[in-house]
């Protein structure tokens, strides 16, 4: 699998470490009334779709940047690669 890094260009997936569903960026509010349930769902439950999946890859053996990769889990085809910081900012996080 080749991941087309937005800054470095095409890199072998072997340079990266996989960290699962990109929903992990959306950390729940620890002060909310429902925090216990929210964190259980956040930590342990997954949509695990067959098809398009947004997921976190860490460029451990290189730039050490975090990426959000949109990949089809049935064909391994990667349709979009973006920096996790860009993705997070778009979702209203400050970094």
């Amino acid at each position, binding site marked *: 699998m080749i991941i087309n890094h937005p800054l470095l260009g095409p890199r072998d*997936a072997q340079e990266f470490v996989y960290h*699962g569903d990109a929903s992990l960026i959306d950390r729940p509010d620890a002060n909310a009334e429902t925090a216990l349930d929210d964190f259980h769902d956040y930590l342990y439950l*997954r*949509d695990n779709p*067959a098809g398009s999946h947004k997921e976190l890859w860490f460029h451990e053996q290189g730039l050490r940047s975090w990426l959000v990769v949109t990949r089809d889990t049935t064909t*391994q085809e990667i349709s979009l690669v973006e920096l996790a910081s860009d993705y997070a900012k778009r979702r209203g996080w400050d970094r």
Partner: protein
Amino acid sequence: MRYSALKVLMEGLRGHTGWKPAWRDPAPQTDYDYVIVGGGGHGLATAHYLAKVYKKARIAVLEKGWIGSGNVGRNTTIIRSNYLLDGNEPLYEFSLKLWEGLEQDLNYNAMVSQRGILNLCHSDAQRDAYRRRGNAMILNGADAELLDETQVREMAPFLDFENARFPIKGGLLQRRGGTVRHDAVAWGYARSADSYGVDIIQNCEVTGFKIEKGAIKGVETSRGYIGAKKVGVAVAGNSSRVMAMAGLRLPIESHVLQAFVSEGLKPVIPGVITFGAGHFYVSQSDKGGLVFGGDIDGYNSYAQRGNLPVVEDVLEGGMALMPMIGRARLLRMWGGLMDMSMDGSPFIDHTPIDGLYFNGGWCYGGFKATPASGYVFAHLLATDTPHETATMLRLDRFRSGAMIDEKGAGAQPNLH
């Protein structure tokens, strides 16, 4: 029809004209008492024990393709019960006991071969950990022996004992472990379940659940609606997809695990051998092929094929353990879909929906558990209480904090 040596002899004299199909091909009825979703090893075993042990009737197994087309035909055929934790070991030991009587129970030759499984250790610390594991196994009624280097040398002289980085210091041996002809397990359970009146319905994909007031009423399928009092789902690999149709999210990710077989060779490997310093395990099939595997690829996948970095990693493990494997040619490699649970242990539990039960999250340990998984799932379906060997395999264990982290690796699927 009962299979026996006499039957084979008689059929030989009659030109083999008397053999009948091993199971029927019935059309689905409008409703059943028990519907099992998934015609793999676990689903078919569930139907068998539900009918034979728990004396239930009006049972159907629904399979979207052909029976045994998933992981029961894609694994590396190993059976063992060398687990550590109380949540796991009783179930796997129960399973190994069922394997020992399986062929008589099913009247089917599943080629159960207890040739032993040897986990190698490479340091003093690892030997201590294996001693602890072996003691835990013995406390749960299993067998375990700690071998020193000399004993391992006698058993497997071809290993790289003098490896500079990972010298072999001994191993934990379970003599009752071994291998089984995996397809025959699916076929044997199917034939036996069918003989007790279970309808095995192939090419019948479940497309939805009918749920009213929090209780299951039946399943929508590609062959029409089928009513059911109780529905058990055993579709590991695709659990999240199927349970999403009932509105449930699971603590599971689907990952791909690759397996490999070499060309046929003369007998060389006495049993199952596992590398203690990397992830590599190998056995030899009755046809002579070296059957081996290693880690999952480590990313979500529903494709039954993997990538080359893991192929390289597995083969490096093989070369480090037994350099002679470099002379063998690889015949085939393939992938299967693993339900990777968050703590590496399975689930056999009721769901929040009345009458809907779930069996999954087997990671890459499902095959060895097939008989016990079917037995305890049948127990749960029949009695609404968990079997004594499966009380801890709960779906809510992450909420309650009662995780079963066999490896002590943490709560993330690609760590297991």
